């Protein structure tokens, strides 16, 4: 019997501070509380405290896995962190987390840089490492502090994004059936500028000019150090790619649409999710929209949503669940899983 990788548990961490629709509406009076909720499906977003970083959230999320006795520190062989808001350019934030969690020094630890498709990639990496016999026990952490990149006046993104971290424990299980996979991936770097923080890397280092705010063509003030999202083009990309990706995954896995028990897509915002659901014709009771209180935490939304739906009984062990991530890159990916919590 072969070793198959499986998802054994998830724990999430959200920062204390909740940015509510009431507070946003005071800042942007043209958008009232009801309108923000109706369009985004979000009531509040968690925002990191000043000085709170990805490693702090990642440590808190992973510590919950240990507290819940999902796994013990001594058995961890590899720590993988997905983030686009690392503590430093170098070293890898995963190394800092290894030390802060007092994990054994004999483990592997590394970061990888992806956004909304990041959790799907993380599952593919972890599955590969486990099923080739390199490791048996892996912690995959997806964590972001995107709100640090946002211009305070940019209502188009401040209503949507929140900060948070999710830690997933994956381990080897002796069985014949696949617990994760197959996968579909896609990339279109020609859309890189549709969702970008233009300054701060080596292509455009921070200098006195990068902090200057200019009014962009959508009428919103931003500096090149701020996150820019062309919401309309990201939306078009999603409508164009995601339905095809779902079809491709069903074909590749030889799965019938009706045999998928539940669908968890990247929790971008309710409007985008509802549009996708209708276009793909997924029944409401099989489709997850549950980020009302955690908002869009980028690569952390899928595991956060999965944890909530499992705890609510909407997903049970061995149910076939489709996961799909899509966004910054442009990058997209989808897979099928069966959890075994």
């Amino acid at each position, binding site marked *: 019997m072969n070793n198959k990788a499986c998802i054994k548990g998830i724990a999430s961490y959200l920062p204390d501070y909740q940015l509510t629709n009431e507070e946003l509406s005071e800042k942007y009076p043209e958008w009232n509380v009801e309108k923000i909720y109706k369009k985004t499906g979000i009531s509040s977003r968690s925002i990191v405290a000043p000085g709170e970083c990805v490693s702090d959230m990642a440590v808190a999320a992973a510590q919950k896995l240990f507290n819940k006795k999902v796994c013990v520190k001594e058995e961890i062989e590899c720590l993988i962190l997905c983030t686009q808001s690392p503590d430093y350019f170098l070293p890898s934030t995963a190394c800092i987390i290894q030390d802060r969690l007092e994990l054994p020094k004999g483990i592997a630890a590394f970061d990888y840089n992806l956004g909304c498709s990041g959790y799907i990639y993380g599952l593919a990496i972890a599955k590969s490492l486990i099923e080739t016999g390199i490791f048996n026990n892996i912690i995959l952490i997806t964590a972001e502090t995107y709100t640090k990149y946002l211009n305070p006046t940019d*209502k188009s993104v401040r209503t949507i994004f929140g900060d948070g971290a999710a830690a997933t424990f994956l381990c080897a299980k002796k069985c014949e059936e696949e617990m994760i996979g197959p996968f579909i991936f896609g990339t279109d770097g020609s859309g890189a500028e549709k969702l970008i923080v233009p300054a701060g890397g080596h292509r455009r280092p921070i200098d006195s000019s990068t902090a200057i705010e200019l009014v962009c063509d959508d009428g919103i003030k931003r500096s090149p150090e701020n996150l820019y999202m*062309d919401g*309309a083009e990201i939306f078009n990309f999603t409508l164009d790619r995601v339905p095809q990706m779902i079809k491709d995954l069903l074909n590749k896995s030889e799965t019938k649409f009706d045999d998928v028990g539940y669908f968890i897509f990247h929790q971008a915002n309710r409007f985008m999710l509802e549009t996708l659901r209708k276009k793909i014709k997924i029944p409401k009771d099989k489709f997850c929209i549950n980020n009302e209180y955690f908002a869009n935490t980028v690569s952390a939304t899928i595991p956060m949503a999965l944890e909530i739906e499992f705890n609510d009984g909407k997903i049970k062990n061995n149910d076939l669940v489709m996961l799909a991530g899509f966004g910054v890159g442009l990058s997209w990916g989808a897979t099928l899983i069966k959890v075994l919590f």
Partner: protein
Amino acid sequence: MNEAFLEEMAEILEEDIGNITPDYSLSKENFDSLAIVATLALIDDIFEVTVSGKELRKVKDIGSILRLVEKAMGK
């Protein structure tokens, strides 16, 4: 003129349906980022075509949206 389209546009613009005509004027105030994304979804749903977000952001009235749609449909 597509009635379903105009009805939905009235909803998006939070406007009375009777006021929605091809001349209805669009500005940054009433046609903000949320409204633009909602319009893209509507066009995809009703006409099954995609128009560019950049082009849609530039339109000044409802009639121009319909011309963008016709262009995308190859009419």
